[in-house]
């Protein structure tokens, strides 16, 4: 039992340390806080990001966003 648990731990450890940790200089804490939210159940962050983008587009283009949607709807 102990051996099995130890082997599982070693396997998991190797998996986690397989890739060197990503750093981005002084922005590393922000990067880690951002990425942490994308690792498990990323949808709230994805939807929040999309909301910001769409509101930005609406403020920029106004009702002309309907033109963009018309093009996209014909794009499949």
């Amino acid at each position: 039992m102990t051996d099995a648990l130890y082997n599982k731990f070693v396997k998991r450890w190797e998996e986690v340390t397989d890739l060197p940790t990503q750093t981005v200089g002084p922005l590393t804490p922000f990067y880690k806080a951002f990425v942490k939210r994308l690792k498990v159940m990323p949808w709230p962050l994805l939807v929040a990001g999309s909301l910001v983008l769409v509101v930005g587009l609406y403020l920029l283009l106004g009702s002309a966003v309907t033109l963009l949607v018309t093009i996209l709807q014909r794009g499949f």
Partner: protein
Amino acid sequence: MVNDILIAAYRFPKRVIGVILRPYETYRKISSDGKPWELGFIAVCAVCYFATAAIVKTSLFRPFLLTRQFFALFSGAAATYIIAVGLFWTVGKLFGAKGTLRGLGISWGYTLLPTIVWFWVTSLLYVTVPPPRTTAPMGVAFSVLYLLFSATLLFWKVTLAYLSLRFALRLDLVKILATSAIVLSILAVYSVGMYWLGLFRVPFI
């Protein structure tokens, strides 16, 4: 071979749920022990979309036209997948990538899930709420919701693509950005070609 197919059939739904809920951990597993047969199940999902698109795009319900449209879409998407994987592999190697081509091929295959969902929903909306959109309040409201849906799937796709390059090619953030910039520039030119051929107005990458 039957065993491999059964294993892939058992794994595929778990992987899909994993890619939706726990993308980081799932992509780590896909890159290390993904089986080529899993791509077959992704191809089946794509085929369902191509069948829908062939029916929606072809105004006449003629078997020949439907089949021709279906094979054109399928060939275009398959070619794009092969070219995208080939380019990421080649350019990634220039930046010191260490992974395997198999890992990249399988993990990149899973990045097609958001693409298939977007194209499939868009083709269904084309029938149920056909364009053009008007600037009336309902038209603007639909446009905002549709853009929200599209942007969310795009961000999901970007996340999966990043994880694919991170785990399959073992690149860091800067190298992933550099590789993506080069490959996407080439794919942009390629997409113009697909547009002129009338296959995909929005690139099926």
